[in-house]
């Protein structure tokens, strides 16, 4: 694992992994969504709106997965001081935020015909909204730290502290009364019929690959920026 902390080794790996994960992610997610729209039958209770879940569920999981990655990468950065871990945490923030926002909007659109309301201030929806605000704050903090030349430790500590919201989101439907249904899938158990579960899992796999591709692209961009800035600074010091 430590070997990949070398930027050169990371770049040589990322150069062929980026198009691979992007292409596989696009094919899998497009296939899963087409399956969900054109093949899956309407649900007995939700009717046609069940099709929204093939988009809503993967984005919800990846919204939480994005912050989990920020927390793990932040911990690695704080303990081992790998600069690539700090870059990885920053790179996960944008796709995490985008997927969290898509989850919130698609959930709201699903809620109107199913629950009869666009929004309720219950535990699951509110904690997911808090996650979106945490992402915005993390992105602003990381950008400010870079601009002001402050240590990346501050956003890393924020990334670790923010992780407290992840188990709250996960357990919110168990701890509090909610319009949101309890977990349908847990470790080794599912209450979802195979006709819905299979395209859902394909969709999760496809969107996870897209998430990975965006993280790789963001890491390459942040690394290239850092390398260009370092070279310019070195030249300016030599010229002075």
């Amino acid at each position, binding site marked *: 694992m430590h070997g990949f902390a070398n930027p050169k080794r990371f770049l040589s790996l990322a150069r062929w992994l980026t198009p691979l994960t*992007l292409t596989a992610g696009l094919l899998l*997610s497009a296939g899963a*969504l087409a399956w969900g*729209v054109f093949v899956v039958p309407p649900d007995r209770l939700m*009717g*046609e*709106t069940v*099709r*929204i879940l093939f*988009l*809503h569920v993967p*984005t919800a999981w990846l919204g939480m997965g994005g912050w989990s990655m920020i927390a793990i990468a932040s911990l690695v950065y704080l303990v081992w001081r790998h600069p690539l871990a700090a870059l990885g945490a920053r790179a996960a923030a*944008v*796709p995490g935020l*985008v997927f969290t*926002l*898509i989850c919130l*909007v*698609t959930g709201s*659109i*699903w809620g*109107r*015909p199913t629950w009869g309301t666009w929004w309720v201030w219950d535990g699951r929806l509110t904690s997911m909204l808090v996650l979106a605000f945490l992402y915005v704050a993390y992105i602003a903090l990381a950008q400010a730290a870079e601009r002001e030349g402050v240590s990346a430790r501050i956003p890393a500590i924020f990334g670790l502290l923010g992780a407290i919201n992840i188990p709250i989101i996960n357990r919110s439907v168990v701890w509090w009364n909610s319009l949101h249904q309890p977990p349908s899938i847990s470790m080794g158990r599912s209450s979802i019929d195979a006709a819905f579960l299979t395209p859902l899992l394909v969709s999760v796999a496809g*969107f996870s690959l*897209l998430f990975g*591709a*965006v993280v790789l*692209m*963001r890491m*390459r*961009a*942040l690394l*290239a*920026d850092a*390398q*260009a800035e370092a*070279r*310019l600074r070195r030249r300016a010091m030599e010229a002075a």
Partner: protein
Amino acid sequence: MREALDQWDFVIAAYAVGLVGTIAMIVWSWLAMRRAERRRDEVRRR
């Protein structure tokens, strides 16, 4: 009188939001990566 809801309108709206958001993020990330790597290569050459 209650409004009649066509469930497909909600499905189409949700997919439009999801697809536009995801594709915009991928295109923006790709362009930002290409721009940053081009700039780094130019700085190296200079």
